C-alpha cells in the first residue's frame, strides 16, 4: 500500500472554510488525509505556521483564502497572504522543498467542488512525495 500522507489546510472563515463546509453539505468526497484549521482570515498568514507544519511532520500545507480583488471579508487580507506566501514559496524552494509541499489557493464560499478537487489533488501529489527528513544538527555542522 502506498504511503499515507498528511496535509494541513489553513482556511479563512468566510471563503475557503465555508467552501470546505459546503463540500460537506454537498457530500463531495475527498481523501481523509487533509486536516482543516479555521482561521478568521487568510491575512493571518504566518510563514512560521507553514514551516512549523512541515517540520512537525505534515507532508504538505494548503493556505486557502478569498478570491482577489474584492472577496476578502477583511478588506485585503488575501493580498497580505499573497505577498507573504510568495516570499515563502521562494524561500522553501531555496531550502530544497518540492513545490507541491505548499499551495496558496483562492476558494470562494460557493466553490465546494473546487475545494474538494484541490484536496484530492494535494493528497495525490503528496502521496508521491517522499517523507520529509530533516538533517540533525550534527549532520550539518562539522
Amino acid at each position, binding site marked *: 500500500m502506498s504511503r499515507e500522507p498528511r496535509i494541513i489546510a489553513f482556511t479563512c472563515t468566510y471563503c475557503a472554510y465555508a467552501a470546505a463546509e459546503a463540500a460537506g453539505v454537498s457530500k463531495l468526497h475527498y481523501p481523509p488525509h487533509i486536516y482543516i484549521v479555521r482561521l*478568521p482570515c487568510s491575512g493571518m*498568514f504566518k510563514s512560521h505556521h507553514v514551516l*512549523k507544519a512541515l517540520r512537525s*511532520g505534515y507532508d504538505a500545507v494548503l493556505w486557502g483564502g478569498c478570491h482577489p480583488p474584492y472577496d476578502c471579508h477583511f*478588506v485585503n487580507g488575501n493580498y497580505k497572504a499573497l505577498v507573504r506566501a510568495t516570499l515563502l514559496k521562494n524561500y522553501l524552494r531555496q531550502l530544497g522543498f518540492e513545490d507541491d509541499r505548499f499551495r496558496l489557493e483562492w476558494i470562494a464560499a460557493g466553490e465546494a467542488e473546487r475545494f474538494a478537487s484541490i484536496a484530492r489533488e494535494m493528497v495525490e501529489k503528496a502521496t508521491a512525495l517522499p517523507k520529509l527528513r530533516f538533517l540533525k544538527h550534527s549532520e550539518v555542522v562539522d
Partner: protein
Amino acid sequence: MEGSSRIGVFLCHCGTNIAGVVDIKRVAEEIGKIPNVVVWDHRFLCSADGIDSMVSSIRSSGVDRVVVAACSFRTHEPVFQAALHRAGLNPYLLEIVSTRELCSWVHEGEKEKATEKAIRMVRAAIAKIRDNRPLERRRLPVVPAALVVGGGVAGIRAALDIADSGFTVYLIERGASIGGNMARLDKTFPTLDCSICILGPLMNAVAQHPNIRLLTYSEVVSVEGRVGEFVVKILRKPRYIKESLCKGCLICIAKCPARAIDEFNLKLSHRKAIYVPYPQAVPRIPVIDPDACLYLRKGICRTCEKLCPTGAVDFAQRGEVVEVRVGSIIVATGFEEYDISSVYEYGYGRYPNVVTGLQLERLVSSYGPTEGRLTVPGLGIEPRRVAIINCAGSRDERHLPYCCRVGCMASLKHAWYIKHLVPEAEVLIFADEIRASGKNFEEFYRRIRLLPGVYIVKSRASEVRANPSGTLSIKAYDPVLNREVTVEVDLVVLEVGIVASRSTEAVRNILKLGASPTGGFLLELHPKLNPVETAVDGVYICGAAAGPKDIPESVAQASAAASKVIALLSRGYIEIQPHTARVVEELCSGCRICVTACAYGAIRIVERGGRNVASVDEVLCKGCGSCVGSCPSGAIEIQNLKLSQVEAVMSEMQGWEPYVQRA
C-alpha cells in the same frame, strides 16, 4: 497554560449523519483516555433533550471547558453557547469541531480513516481549548435607519415594510426611476394582471411615504462601519434638473431635438436627450443624458431650459456625494438578461426580428415603442408565425448551467400575448419541457396549450437563420416525428437566461458579499435556513439578485429581509464578537509593522513604561489576524486563537503517539 482545567467533550451522532461513518464509541474510548477529559455522546445533541442533558452534564461533572464534536459552528455555535451559558460557563470556553461537514459527510465509505480523523480533530480541539479564556461580548447601539439598494419590486416592498414600522429608509436606485424590470413587463403570469397597474401604486406609495428618502439616479460609492452603524457614501449623479423645482409637467421633453437609444425599451426605440424612462416613472422628474444632450456635448440648444416654467433645468449641476448612517442594509439589485448574442446560433444581434422575452414585453406594451401594436422589428408587419425558444442560454454548460425559473411560464404568457394581439398567428414554443411547478402554473399551462394555433415542440431549437425575404428559419429536432424539422417564422422570441444585474457586482464588491460562480447571484448565509442573511452581519439580500425567481417569490423574500431588518432596528443594540487582537507587551518592540498591516486603523503605538508598544482599539478591531501574520516577534495574538493554540492544534492532529499531558 491551564493544566488544572477539566474538559467536557460532547460527541453528537447527528442520527446517522456522523455516527453512520464515524465510530463514536471508538472516538469516546480514545478521547476518554486523555486525563481530565470527560466524554458524553448523544444521538441529537442540538435537540431540546440533547441540550438539557448537556447542561446537566456540565453542571454535575464540574467541567470548565467544553468541546462539541458535531456540525458547523455557523449554524450551531449560538445554540451550544447558550447551553454553556445556562450551565454557568462563559460561552467562549466552547470549541466546536465539525465532525459532520469536515469528516463524516466527505469520507463516507472510509469509516476506519474517518474515525481516526475524528479522533485527531477532537484531540486538537481539546488541546486548543485548554488555553481559551472567558471573553465578554460588547454591546453597541444601532442607528434606527436602513438602506435599501435597488428600486425594483423587491427593493420597493422591503423599503415600504421597514418604513411602515416607523424606521427611516434610504431607497437608492441607479436609474432615473424606481420600478425595475417589473415595470418593463406588460402582464404577469399566471394571472395575466397588468404589471404596471399593480406595481404603480407601490411606486407611488414609496414616493409619498414620510419615512422613505428616495434617492434615484444614485449609486453606492462606499460602505464603512459595521452592523448597527454603516456609514454609506452615495453618489447622486447630476440629473441637470433641480428636483425641488421640477413639477413634472414634462414640457421640456417635447421640444428636445436630440435623440438617444432608449434603454428602458431595451434598445427597440429612441428617446429624447431629456427624458423620463416611462410615463409612470417615479419620481416624475426628467433626466438629461449628457452623452446625447446638444448643450452638454456641443454647447448649443438649451431649449429645455428656455421652456421650463419653474427654471428647474440646471446645466451647472454636478455629481454630489452624500453620506448617510444606517443600522442595516438590504441589497435588491435585481437581474438582467444574459447576453444572448454570445449564443451565436440564435442570431440575436444579427437579425432584427430575433428578440428577447423582455423585448417582447416592450413590443406588446401599451407604453412601449409601438404602443401595444405587435409589429415585427425589421419587417414592420404583424407576425404570421412566431417561434419562442425556451432555455436560451440556460441549462447549458457553455453558458448558464442553471434554470432561469421564469422562462417556461414567460413563454406561455408570451404565446398568449401573440394570440391575443394577432389571433390568426401561429405560435411554436420550442422547449425540452415546460416546468410549471407553482401556484396555478399547471392550470395556466393547460389553458395556453389548448389555445388553437399554439404548438409546443418538445425539443431545443438548434439554429436560427435568415431567409432572403427577411423571415427566419428555425431548425430543430422533433422527437415526435423523430427527424429534423425546419420552420419558417416572422419573429423569434428567445426566453433568455437571467444573471444578477451588472450593478450587483459593484455593490457586492463594496459590501464584500459572496456570489455564485455562475450568474453572479448573491450568496446567502445558508441556502435553507438563512436565505436572506449574508456572511456580513446586518446585510440582507432579496429578489432576483439573490437567485432566479419570479415576482411573488421576490416580494416574499423582500418582506423576509425587511422583517430581519426591523427586528434588528427595534432591538436597538448589537452584540459583537470579542475575538479581537491583543498585544503581548513584553514581546512587542514597537516596530509598527502591525500598524501598517491593519486595514481598520485599529492599532496605535503607545508609550508604556518608557517603551513604545502597539495597542489595539477593541471597537475598531475586527479580529482578522492580519497583524498576527505580520508581527516578526509573535507579540500580537487573536484572543482564543493564540499562536500556541494554533501550534497545539497542528501537533495534536499530526501526533499519533499516545496522549502525553503537557505541563
